[in-house]
């Protein structure tokens, strides 16, 4: 299992893509023939496989281990227009001490906020080790001109964001303009470089709920990895369906095959719609079975979620005290009415 290190310096994505595709010039036609040359996804088989993986029984010590691992993989998220500095600070306090009744509870991996909240989150998290992820590039629609998207990204990076969650231009992707998507990702990856030469890790949100087919999910995954994404992420959380198990399964196959091809590991982040411990454990089973146990690490797999943490904490308390717990014993993260 690899240890978390500072992200490697950005490689020239275009040059590497040319090498991988075996072409002298990276054109949309070259990308199209490469992406459409990927094997198609057997929809029925994929969904049956995902459903089968969802039936595994995880009990007692395995369940306790899985719950703690899932907690440590959460990107605790608040992405609302009504976000206030107070709410972000509250969420950070929760990340630092998820369960005040049991200080052995692991901390989530990161707090995920809009770019303007990064300074607030950084200050609140201090030296806790919890990272700050910022959504950028005109999240969630991605409908803005490139200079705006790059400025959005640079702002978040210079404010101290450890990770950037970008959205791809789904309109360009669906109209077959893969080169535009490739360039956007590559340029945003460049914008993730800090002044000291280190890089913020880049998560590429494909918004699978808008990609229509599983074949497109596979193509978008490969395109994102080719363009230099450190993570491929399902959704913004603003579109339904969000993170389904079959979609995540396809993405896990993609990162597994990408490592076989290039030797590099890319992370996976399902986001949106994962609310229960049971769901989270199903995803962990799928990670282990499809990608392998190397990905069972917060550095390589994340859950984008907000309410999931409370359910995991309730399950954790249930196992600790031997009785069912209730909402009175976890924090209420819904915005105050006052």
């Amino acid at each position, binding site marked *: 299992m690899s240890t978390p290190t500072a992200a490697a310096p950005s490689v020239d994505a275009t040059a590497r893509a040319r090498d991988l595709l075996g072409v002298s010039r990276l054109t949309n036609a070259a990308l199209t023939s490469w992406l459409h040359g990927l094997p198609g996804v057997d929809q029925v088989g994929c969904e049956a496989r995902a459903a089968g993986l969802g039936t595994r029984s995880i009990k007692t010590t395995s369940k306790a281990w899985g719950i703690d691992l899932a907690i440590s993989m959460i990107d605790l998220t608040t992405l609302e227009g009504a976000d206030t500095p107070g709410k972000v600070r509250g969420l950070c306090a929760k990340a630092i001490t998820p369960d005040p009744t049991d200080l052995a509870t692991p901390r989530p991996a990161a707090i995920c906020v809009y770019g303007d909240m990064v300074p607030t989150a950084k200050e609140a998290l201090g030296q806790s080790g919890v990272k700050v992820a910022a959504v950028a590039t005109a999240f969630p629609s991605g409908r803005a001109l490139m200079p705006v998207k790059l400025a959005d990204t640079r702002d978040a990076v210079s404010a101290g964001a450890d990770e950037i969650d970008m959205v791809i231009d789904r309109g360009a992707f669906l109209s077959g303009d893969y080169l535009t998507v490739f360039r956007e990702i590559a340029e945003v990856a460049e914008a993730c470089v800090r002044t000291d030469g280190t890089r913020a890790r880049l998560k590429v949100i494909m918004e699978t709920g808008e990609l229509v087919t599983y074949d497109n999910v596979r193509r978008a995954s490969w395109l994102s990895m080719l363009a230099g994404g450190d993570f491929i992420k399902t959704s913004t959380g603003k579109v339904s369906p969000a993170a389904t198990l079959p979609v995540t399964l396809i993405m896990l196959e993609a990162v597994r095959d990408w490592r076989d091809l290039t030797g590099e590991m890319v992370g996976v982040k399902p986001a949106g719609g994962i609310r229960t411990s049971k769901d989270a454990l199903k995803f962990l089973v799928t990670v282990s079975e499809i990608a392998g146990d190397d990905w069972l690490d917060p550095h390589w797999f994340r859950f984008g979620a907000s309410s999931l943490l409370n359910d995991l904490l309730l399950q954790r308390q249930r196992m600790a005290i*031997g*009785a*069912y*717990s209730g909402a009175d*014993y976890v924090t209420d993260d819904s915005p105050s009415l006052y």
Partner: protein
Amino acid sequence: MSPTATRSTGTDARVDVRKTYKLYIGGKFPRSESGRSYEVVDGRGKFLANAAQGSRKDARDAVVAARGAFAGWAGATAYNRGQVLYRVAEVMEGRRAQFVAEVRASEGVAERRAETIVSQAIDRWVWYAGWTDKLAQVLGGLNPVAGPYFDISAPEPTGVVAVLAPQRSSLLGLVSVLAPVVCSGNTAVVLTSELRPLPAITLSEALATSDVPGGVINLITGRTAEVAPWLASHRDVNAIDLTGAADADGVSWGDLELAAAENLKRVVRPAGEGSGAVEPDWSTTPDLGRITSFLETKTVWHPKGR
């Protein structure tokens, strides 16, 4: 469809419809997640039906459903709650014959006696339905205080209430413990009589076809000794009625009360002392005791102007 498909066989012989009942949780009728069921027999050991044997996880799901339904039910106007509960009595009246047959079979009483019990049960339900919009006047009021304030107290429901239904009185006893819980705005998770669950199951069918919102009343059939401890220790349950611990196989209500103390649940003990706990006589008209056992008092201070 071909004409032959609907042709009658012309004989009166009919295959028995053997019943396998399910639980009532969140307004739906799920099977037990455990997949188990148990045979319900009458006083002479004759098979009556199969009932779902609920597990701790069914109880957990029922508490989630009851918690979800609480805000809406407690927030409904008292008048509306009264109408909804009265409607339940109407539906029960429509199923009178079925209730009579099941009380007869379950409790081993004569037809006449069963008729009386069912009438009393329906009347009891109506009695409690009538109390919904009168509780605040009777139990609340204006408190005299030494200052320029109005000081007003009003009763409020306590939350999710777990109810161990009486083991012997399968319908009248059930109604007598359930109606007082829900009339004030609490939601209920009921563990039915272990050996005599049929009238409770029929009540759940009456509830599902009346206007009671899903989750307000949840009924779990099964082994009291198996499920009751999980309800008693559940941190999201606000009160527990241990009436049904009397005569329940393998149940010590003292242990249940101990578990309930962990989150300061309100507890209603069974009548009688220790292992001598008994079921009360359900035929007498009750007082407000069972209602007030599951109420909180909200007191409001308001400055008095000139």
